[in-house]
């Protein structure tokens, strides 16, 4: 009972912190966007804009109001879930609808990438640690270095050339939304997910290998061995569980890769997600849309970090 209450308290505390941080982040995005050069009117009207059409646009979207008034209007709407309408990218379209229709694609590809990174790193990290110093260890650590050093846009094109245009296994462009077909989403989302997963998988593999190696030679493992426990039992209960704590922590830290990754990779593979929407919105100075997208991403990072925090507490009760 007490455990449950403390968990609920933590969740409430976490939710409050997330809300506060998200709003601070949104404010930062709001003012950073306005501080930059550029005019959404020009993005809509293009090179044919005339002073009259620009003035009409600014009036329509209330862009002449003082900045604080605009911010308050946006904030008071956002707090009740009304993010307004897109100014440029999808003129007049409610942002909630626009982002809502794209969020599943981004979440799917993100989760897919995370899952791939976890599977790859769990296998590679464990084998590396258990066979440390052997050829397979060198191979996997070298691959990890490669994975960390490769920029995602480069890797994306390398994957397209090798697996789509070369071998013809995967489509070179386009993504099937999971609600249309889960199999199609898994298939068409594989390359983008892999491109996002690669740097994460590399980072996870390295941390898992190091953590496992460190734990393998600790005193409590030696004691367990002297007590005659089987190697499998020792690995699972005494080594792996301890090594999981730094591993899970790093997952939380690396989620930012997911974001940077989605933004670039979505554009290259034509995934209609929140990442590519945010890039277009930023280029077009579609202020309310950028703010909404940024808020979604912020919330995702904060939520994952919060979940990681909770998991770490479970794994290591001392941290509670």
């Amino acid at each position, binding site marked *: 009972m007490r455990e449950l209450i403390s968990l609920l308290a933590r969740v409430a505390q976490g939710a409050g912190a997330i809300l506060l941080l998200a709003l601070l982040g949104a404010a930062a995005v709001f003012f950073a966007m306005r501080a930059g050069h550029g005019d959404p009117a020009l993005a809509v009207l293009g090179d044919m804009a005339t002073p009259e059409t620009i003035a009409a646009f600014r009036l329509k979207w209330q862009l002449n109001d003082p900045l604080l008034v605009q911010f308050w209007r946006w904030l008071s709407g956002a707090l009740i879930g009304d993010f307004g309408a897109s100014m440029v990218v*999808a003129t007049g379209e409610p942002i909630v609808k*626009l982002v809502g229709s794209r969020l599943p694609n981004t979440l799917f590809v993100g989760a897919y990438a995370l899952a791939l990174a976890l599977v790859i790193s769990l296998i590679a990290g464990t084998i590396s640690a258990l066979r440390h110093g052997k050829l397979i260890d060198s191979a996997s650590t070298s691959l990890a270095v490669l994975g960390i050093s490769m920029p995602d846009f480069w890797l994306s094109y390398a994957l397209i050339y090798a697996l789509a245009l070369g071998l013809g296994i995967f489509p070179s462009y*386009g993504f099937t939304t999971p609600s249309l077909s889960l199999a199609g989403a898994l298939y068409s989302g594989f390359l983008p997910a892999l491109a996002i997963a690669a740097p994460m998988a590399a980072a996870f593999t390295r941390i898992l290998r190091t953590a496992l190696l460190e734990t393998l030679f600790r005193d409590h493992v030696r004691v367990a061995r002297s007590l005659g426990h089987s190697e499998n039992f020792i690995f699972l209960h005494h080594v792996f569980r301890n090594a999981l704590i730094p591993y899970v922590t790093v997952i939380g830290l690396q989620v930012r890769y997911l974001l940077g990754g989605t933004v670039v990779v979505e554009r290259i593979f034509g995934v209609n997600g929140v990442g590519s929407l945010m890039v277009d919105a930023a280029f077009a100075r579609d202020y309310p849309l950028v703010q909404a997208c940024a808020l979604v991403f912020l919330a995702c990072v904060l939520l994952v970090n919060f979940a990681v925090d909770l998991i770490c507490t479970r794994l290591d009760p001392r941290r509670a």
Partner: protein
Amino acid sequence: MNRRNALGLIGGSIGAAALPWGTTAAWAQAQTLRAGVTGFTVINTLDPAKASLIPENYIMYGIFNALLKFNDKMEVVGDLAESFQAIDATTLEFKLRRGVKFQDGSDFTADDVKFSIERVADEKTASPNRSKVAPISEIKIIDPFTVRIVTKAPYGPLINYLTNTRTGTQIISRKALEAMGPEAFARRPVGTGRYMVKEWKPNEGVELVGFPGAFEGAPKIMSVNCPFIAEESSGMTAILGNQIDLTSTAPFADVPSLEKRSDVKVLKQPGLNTRYIALNNKRAPFDDVHFRRAVSMAFDRDLLVKAVIFGEGVVTPGVLPPAHWAEGKPVASDFLKFNPEKARAEMALGKYKAGQEGVVLIWGSNWWRRIGEIFVGQVNQVLGTKLTLQAMDFNAAFARAKAGDYDAMVMGWLGLVDPDEYIGEMLGSKGFRNIHHYSSAKMDAILDRGRAEVDRAKRFAVYREAEMLAIEEMPVLSCFTSNVHNLTRPNLKGFTQMAYSNFADQFGTITLS
């Protein structure tokens, strides 16, 4: 069967069953044309009176017709007008086609012509193309199939401004607009073209469906999918991977290698576009004509064509592209030739010396930026100046240029059809493309003559004069014209490329074998 084949087979069958841009097999029965709009992801409106962005025009070309159009030799011919003739210096008479239906089933008549063009001219519409039709004083309906357009004074560009290009004068259904209201019309526009909008997913793409009752005949492929593909290189990988059949552009750097392949066709020709360095004529250091000329002689335009667009274009002496009828033979002016000695000598005549600073704004994709990088590198080397680059996105740079808050900027215009849109609007003191803040009474007088002249041969001579003056005064540094490109699958037939960058107007004749 080895493992690779098996994997491919499994992958392929899942893909055929599931992918929207899936394999040809799945699409063969449905016969959908997959035409990727590459390099763009945003369209705001499909209302001709309101549209301004290039991808909006790409789609609208297939939904609407105008009174006139360009044929494949870039001559003006009738579209919704069967014939046209000048009644006097200020009056054009159009005989309209009979029996033409709009996509909503209503009849096309002279009333729609009057309504569509007056709507563009109406200040309340705030059309970006208003200035093109502002000189019109009256549109007279003689009978349901005869219209006269009267201008306040002789107005040379009018014929070009009534074509189905970036003009805004496409003919819409009055009945549909009044019934739907402009907001709804902009999303589900009604014209006389061969395609109608089936679905428009903001920021994702547009689906078109054929209009069986089109006066040009029902399209051969009734269903067209136009995904917006943000990166041109993604458009290329998409067509190589058979995810699309046609692109609206191609990355310059890849054209040479794509031309060697058999699984893709490259269509290209010199485009109606101009790429140049815009200069702020009202501010140091480009307020000095000697400095402008010196800089012009301090960089090698041929090198730009080779290094920036991989030979996919030609050097232009002035702001008019060679594909345009008003452009004459290359001008042999020293001011346009790369010549370090003469450049330094010219600079010595002016008020700015070696060590002079200045900022060149660059933006956009790689090749656009490379123009600025090479330009600044060469000019600094030749003249000993200290020009620097500042990268930003186009809107930001353009906004600064319009406000006069810049020194120089890499710039370009695309798809303009009348010489007045190039020289007139770029260099006329009141021209709305005049971000150069260049003002010359002499130039304005020449441009006024060009606008007032309706005879094409005489207009040619006038714009020639304007080009020569521009080379003397060098208000901008013209660089080159690039080719326009489309990539198609080898089995695609029936797409005729036009120099002004056309697209959906050709979908109706396309077949996929």
